[in-house]
């Protein structure tokens, strides 16, 4: 079972050096214990471009689709047997990146 662990941030600027080191250590552990699927940090909301090609005539718009103080700063995709295991990993992830995270199951 795969879970999407999104990192919620409400300030601009990436993690501190300490946070990055903690994230690296956490990632190493995910790999060693077989939970790792993928992880990445994302550019801030100001770097976003919205595309609407529903009519076959693509329109590109600057800026994030949802304007809010909180935004998705990065994510992990982890492999875990059930929600309890995923929540444990997410709790350690939140600690390592020093931000709130949200867990959602893949369909």
């Amino acid at each position: 079972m795969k879970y999407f662990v999104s990192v919620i941030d409400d300030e601009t600027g990436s993690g501190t050096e300490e946070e990055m080191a903690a994230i690296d250590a956490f990632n190493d552990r995910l790999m060693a214990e077989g939970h790792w699927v993928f992880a990445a940090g994302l550019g801030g909301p100001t770097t976003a471009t919205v595309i609407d090609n529903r009519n076959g005539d693509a329109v590109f718009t600057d800026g994030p689709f949802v304007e809010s103080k909180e935004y998705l700063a990065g994510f992990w995709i982890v492999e875990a047997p059930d929600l309890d295991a995923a929540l444990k990993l997410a709790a350690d992830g939140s600690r390592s990146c020093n931000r709130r995270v949200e867990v959602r199951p893949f369909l």
Partner: protein
Amino acid sequence: MVAALTRRFGDLDIAEDAAAEAFATAVARWPVDGVPPNPGAWLTTTGNHKAIDRIRRENKRNDKQTEARMLFHDAAFDPPGVIDDDRLRLIFTCCHPALAMEARVALTLRMVGGLTVPEIARAFLVQESAMGRRITRAKAKIKAARIPYRVPSAEDLPARVSGVLAVLYLVFNEGYLASGPDTDPVRHDLTAEAIRLTRLIRALLPEDGEVAGLLALMLLTEARRTARVSASGELVPLDEQDRGAWDAALIVEGQRLVRERLATGAAPGRYQILAAINAVHTSARDTRNTDWSQVVALYDQLIRLDPSPIVALNRAIAVAELDGPKVALAAVDELEDDLAGYHAYHATRAHLLRQLGRSQEARAAYDRAIELAGNTAETAYLTRRRDQLA
């Protein structure tokens, strides 16, 4: 039975429907065929068949694990130990911290307590359709997010048990001080169900001090139920209650639990301390005879565990008996920022101001308390008290 079917099929909906179908079949067949020699086993076997039928019908379960569990699950019924384990698993699933508190309460009453959706909707003054949706959403989350169906590991157990107890205490309190203008002031159906489920958990986790503490707290509170509301539907405060009407059997049982916990010498949690406070009250002939210094000492202990303004308010009420209304009022007034929206804060102030002869301020405090109180018996009591003021 629902618990056993859930373990086997890993799906609350299937388990619930299969159990219902098995009972329906029993109702139709037993009067004709006679009651089978082992009715419990008959129901379990029938429930299993119904569940397998449904899964085959819907043909949506072909993962090997489910198949294997269906085919190799031995015997027609489980020994009692396994059934207990199943119930415990079900309780932990229903009270999982990933579910909203109101969903945990509803799901526990539905799946563990066996209450119907309309019954639960009535209990919490929610539309039946809304309650149905709440339960459906919770079940869907359990399934989609794969909330596990098992007893948590030893390291997680204390935190998860306290989550289960919080659900049961909430059910009990809603019964004991029912809210809403058209409900009975005390909902015995809810208090009884909360006690029944807490007894069940106590049987499953006999070593857990807080489980014993919550059961004792509920029993000692429930013991005073009939004396707590007058014939005219008005709340009767502790010092005016007819103590002869208290349920002696419940008091004996509750106090025995408190003594058992004290004898272990283990540091008590909040439910055990609250139970001990109620044990002091229920062992006194009247309020004057009550060991108030013991009550205040127990509240001091509770505040160290739970420094919430509500605990501080209850401590102040005990302080009033020990050190007088003036000292207590000073302590209560400090809580205004936190408790200005809480009816008991204003009711306590009103009571203390009245004792101090500050009638006008007392009247204003009663007005505010009446405005905020949700319980009909409490409103009636506060109104009479206010109208007694000159």
